[in-house]
């Protein structure tokens, strides 16, 4: 596992030096603007507006990083041939892959934690003191992070066997399909045969269910999040990531680097 850690630490260093964390400036400006605006116009809905806006921004910014940098994690190394010298060392390909994944998840964790701190600061500026139920924002942030980790794994899988452009399209497509997977499961269409309905249901179960990680609405309204839901989402993300990364490792382990 030492090799995995070495690759992960370097991936994190790359993100920092390539100024990936500069998006935090944009987030800070957004939160400051929202806090000032909400303070002037809203009546007793400051918390809902700030938390909704903050969590949505954390999710969207994270999504962009997870998809675009996630796809580039392997494809950029192949294109620039930076991994030639590395893979000739006593390093297994799966270790490289896992290290890249862990490095980007580390980056997203730091980024998301910093944005969460910004969200709390904005919330405090419109409503203080903060109350204990505000701690649920952290739960929502944690679930967003799980979702982002899953997206990174998918982006890496696609980038192992297709072009970066197609990998971005596939990852984005799976994300959209995963968000609406619930609808696919419960869809009642009059002109579909039972076999087609079964197929749609099977696809909906195979797709990652990103709704498992969405508690933004409840948290924005100050409601709690059950521990069982958090546990279930954690297990789901861990298993799904493991399966997707194993598939990526299988593809990458026999890939010819031209």
């Amino acid at each position: 596992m030492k090799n995995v850690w070495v690759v992960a630490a370097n991936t994190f260093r790359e993100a920092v030096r390539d100024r990936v964390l500069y998006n935090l400036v944009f987030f800070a400006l957004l939160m400051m603007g929202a806090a000032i605006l909400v303070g002037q116009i809203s009546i007793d809905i400051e918390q809902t507006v700030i938390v909704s806006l903050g969590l949505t921004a954390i999710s969207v910014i994270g999504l962009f990083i997870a998809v675009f940098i996630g796809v580039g994690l392997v494809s950029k190394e192949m294109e620039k041939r930076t991994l030639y010298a590395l893979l000739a060392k006593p390093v297994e390909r799966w270790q490289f892959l896992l290290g890249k994944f862990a490095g980007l998840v580390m980056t997203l964790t730091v980024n998301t934690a910093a944005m969460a701190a910004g969200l709390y600061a904005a919330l405090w500026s419109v409503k203080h003191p903060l109350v204990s139920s505000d701690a649920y924002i952290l739960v929502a942030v944690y679930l967003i992070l799980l979702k982002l980790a899953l997206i990174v794994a998918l982006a890496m899988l696609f980038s192992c066997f297709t072009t970066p452009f197609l990998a971005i399209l596939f990852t984005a497509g799976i994300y959209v399909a995963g968000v609406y997977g619930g609808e696919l499961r419960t869809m009642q269409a009059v002109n579909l045969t039972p076999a087609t309905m079964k197929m749609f249901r099977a696809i909906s179960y195979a797709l990652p269910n990103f709704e498992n990680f969405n508690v933004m609405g409840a948290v924005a309204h100050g409601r709690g999040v059950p521990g069982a839901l958090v546990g279930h989402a954690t297990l789901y993300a861990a298993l799904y990531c493991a399966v997707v990364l194993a598939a990526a490792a299988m593809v990458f382990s026999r890939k010819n680097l031209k």
Partner: protein
Amino acid sequence: MKVETGEVFGFLGPNGAGKSTTIKLLMRLIFPSAGTARILGKSIDEVSVHREIGYLPEQPYFYDYLTAAEVLDYFARFHGLKANDRQERVARMLKKVGLETARKIQLRKYSKGMLQRVGLAQAILHDPQVVVLDEPMSGLDPLGRRELRDIILELKRDGKTVMFSTHILSDAEMLCDRVGVIVGGKLRGVGTPGEMVGIQTQGMEILFEAGAEGKTPPLAARATKTGERYRVKLPEEELYAALDELKLAGARILSVSQIKPTLEDFFMNLVEADRAQANAVEVSGK
């Protein structure tokens, strides 16, 4: 093809012959459709054998956000070296490849030749038994080429096995105990550079000037004149007669050398022989 322990082996061939492909196979970067390869007696698929291998890729490219010292430290970590050891080795390697003063500059500001030096440093950083260099002279200036030659000879003195690919015959002649020649993806011969080139000798060349009395020797009629100097090419068996003639005319002999084939001649012969053989097979097939 077998490379013996402790020898410097040159892997020669024109562009596109399959040199880099072979090396990439050995480094597990691509996979063979058939056949096997072993290094130090172990299958190349065994990760442990790669602890004893140093590899310089063709036109190496490293993380450009790192400095030379950082990139070497990064690679050293995969060999399980302790922090103090890493620090000491990195400093020693940077000195060896002449990058001491540029150690804190990010690689994005490095020239091609400097990247080649970083590549060489990372290949020998962990003191490997086998060093594989893909076109190591590429991108280096004359000074860099000379330093690289010294490093290869030093590795040989230390008992390391060095295999490097090149399409520059003079490099191979100067450094290699043996060479292997590959053309069109097929190994066409293995032997010492002398064996490879000697067979192909194309005669002798004499460089001379007219004597002090200004008497022009008859040989000058066959020569090419550049300034005051005459250069004449002739078959090896005519050499002594020509030298006697020049001596008699009081000419000043500046040099006598064997005409070796140029790289182009050397490979063109092989390529043409290859084509001729292919055509013969095609005709007999009809």
